[in-house]
């Protein structure tokens, strides 16, 4: 049963000009009862072979509220928390690895070609064919759609893809959100960020974009308080993307049979993580999909 909408702002600009009106986010649908998570063959008697023996080194791209936040000195993460972090810790546990080291990276570096300084990367990475040429992926652990946020001052709000087209869109370069904006919404109006800076995060992005603001996920607050720090949620562009855990090509952890899907009971294992990722507004139509319909008719409902 799908009971929650989850999301993370991953595809918009922290450095967008003031005229930018829209941003895209990835909205995730959590299978509340179970979630497929990459894990390791627990019948293996020895700990998995990793870059540093006895340690799982995890690539992350801080911050993403609810998923991965923390403190880093350079690339050395000295504290981390969030859904992705819990996921990585659980994988390490199943690998019989006592130590976990998190390494801060730019998002693009996680999925680019080349040698990786980590054993796995957990950073809300959508599995795509292009990325799969550079890194391997686990089975999907989360299914997501693209969400659309409106600038604070935007009125009326669009309720269709056609309604988005006259607006200026913003998405993070190289992201699946940018792909959607360019291919399905408005190629001419899409701006992508020049690069992902170390301090890029959803809060800054929305703040710059719309005067919006990001705060820790609190679905109860969102339900009662209306517009949240993500900005005004307009709707979804259904894409059914899958998040996966990235592994370097040829990694020992990547051998067939070493990494396989296993169902994990979120009710049992992840109530904290589940709370962290619920950022939608259940019951307020947060999952409403944007239709391709004519804006003149549909957008008349906007306030």
């Amino acid at each position, binding site marked *: 049963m799908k009971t929650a909408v989850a999301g993370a702002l991953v595809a918009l600009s922290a450095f967008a000009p003031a005229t930018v009106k829209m941003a895209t986010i990835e909205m995730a649908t959590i299978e509340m009862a179970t979630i497929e998570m990459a894990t390791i063959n627990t019948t293996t008697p020895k700990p998995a072979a990793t870059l540093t023996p006895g340690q799982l080194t995890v690539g992350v791209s801080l911050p993403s*509220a609810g998923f991965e936040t923390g*403190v880093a000195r350079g690339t050395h993460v*000295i504290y981390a928390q969030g859904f992705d972090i819990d996921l990585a810790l659980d994988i390490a546990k199943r690998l019989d690895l006592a130590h976990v080291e998190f390494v801060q990276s730019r998002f693009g570096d996680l999925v680019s070609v080349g040698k990786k300084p980590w054993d796995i990367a957990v950073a809300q990475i959508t599995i795509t064919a292009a990325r799969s040429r550079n890194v391997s992926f686990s089975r999907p652990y989360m299914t997501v759609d693209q969400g659309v946020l409106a600038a604070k001052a935007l009125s009326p709000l669009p309720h269709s893809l056609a309604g988005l087209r006259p607006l200026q869109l913003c998405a993070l370069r190289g992201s699946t959100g940018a792909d959607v904006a360019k291919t399905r919404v408005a190629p001419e109006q899409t701006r992508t960020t020049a690069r992902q800076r170390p301090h890029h995060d959803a*809060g800054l992005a929305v*703040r710059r974009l719309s005067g919006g603001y990001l705060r820790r996920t609190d679905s109860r607050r969102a339900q009662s*308080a*209306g517009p949240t*720090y993500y900005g005004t949620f307009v709707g979804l562009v259904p894409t059914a993307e899958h998040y996966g855990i990235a592994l370097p090509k040829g990694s020992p952890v990547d051998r067939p049979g070493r990494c396989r899907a296993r169902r994990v009971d979120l009710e049992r294992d992840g109530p904290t993580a589940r709370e962290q990722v619920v950022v939608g507004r259940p019951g307020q139509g947060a999952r409403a999909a944007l239709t391709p319909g004519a804006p003149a008719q549909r957008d008349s409902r906007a306030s």
Partner: protein
Amino acid sequence: MQERGERRAVKRFLLAVLATLGFVLTSPIATRVQSADAGTASPTVKVWFLVGEQLVSVVRPGSTPQAAVQALIKGPSVAEYKLGYRTYVPPATVLRSLTVAHGEATVDLSLNFALGNAQSLDARLSQLVHTASGFDGVTRVHLLIDGGTAYGMFPGVVTALPITLEQLETPAVPVWTIPNPAPGPAVPDLLAAQRRLVALGFLLPGDADGKDDKVVRVIPVSTGKPSTPTPAGNFKVYAKFAKWWSTPFQEWLLWAVPFNGGVAFHEFPQVPAYAASHGCVRQMATTARWLYNFSVVGMPVKVIGNSK
């Protein structure tokens, strides 16, 4: 007789607020607390704590940003605490270093400063930025945690970059609205409320008939939770704000009628049947605007008792 006369003078404004607690009546306000060292010739620094939903300053001995931040970590005095002053900075926080250069204070604190619930984190960050910015030339505060950069640890505030007061004080959340507010509870028997106040000793026995001091409305509220109780005492309404931005908690307070620093009557989406606020008197949409219109600056407010 004199007491009786004073009470007659305020009878038009006598109002009973029932729910988790909180009753309203009279008197002067103390919105600032002067420390024992204030007013002396010794140099002092300004340190920012909270009363209710807003920041208020106190002075402490010292002349450097380091002294100010150390005093911030130390927290309010016992006297200040009794008056409702609160800090959201964990007392175990360690100031690892503080340097000032080119108008920017770089403050390195221990990890526990970055851990806690979202609202507490926002509040303590506001305290720190206000306190460290209180020196000539300092306009930005760069926060480090254990020598590292905090990514996403303070919801809504990018701490990887220097933070400014302007940034925190600029409302960053749309004003919330409640499209279809739930109707309030049935209007209670005002005379019964009058008698109840007499029984509780808040009114004199002669007031039971409601002909003198008179209850004009009974309002469900949610007052300060036990850790941040609504300070008891006699105050006066000192301002009215149709919407009031809470810098420390980064939220809007609608139809706000403050009477003690950052402690105010105001509308809020959640008004549970228990004490839940940071010290304010929360009301539902059905009554907040009425009280806003009813109030005048200078109106006496008496808070009798608080959460235990």
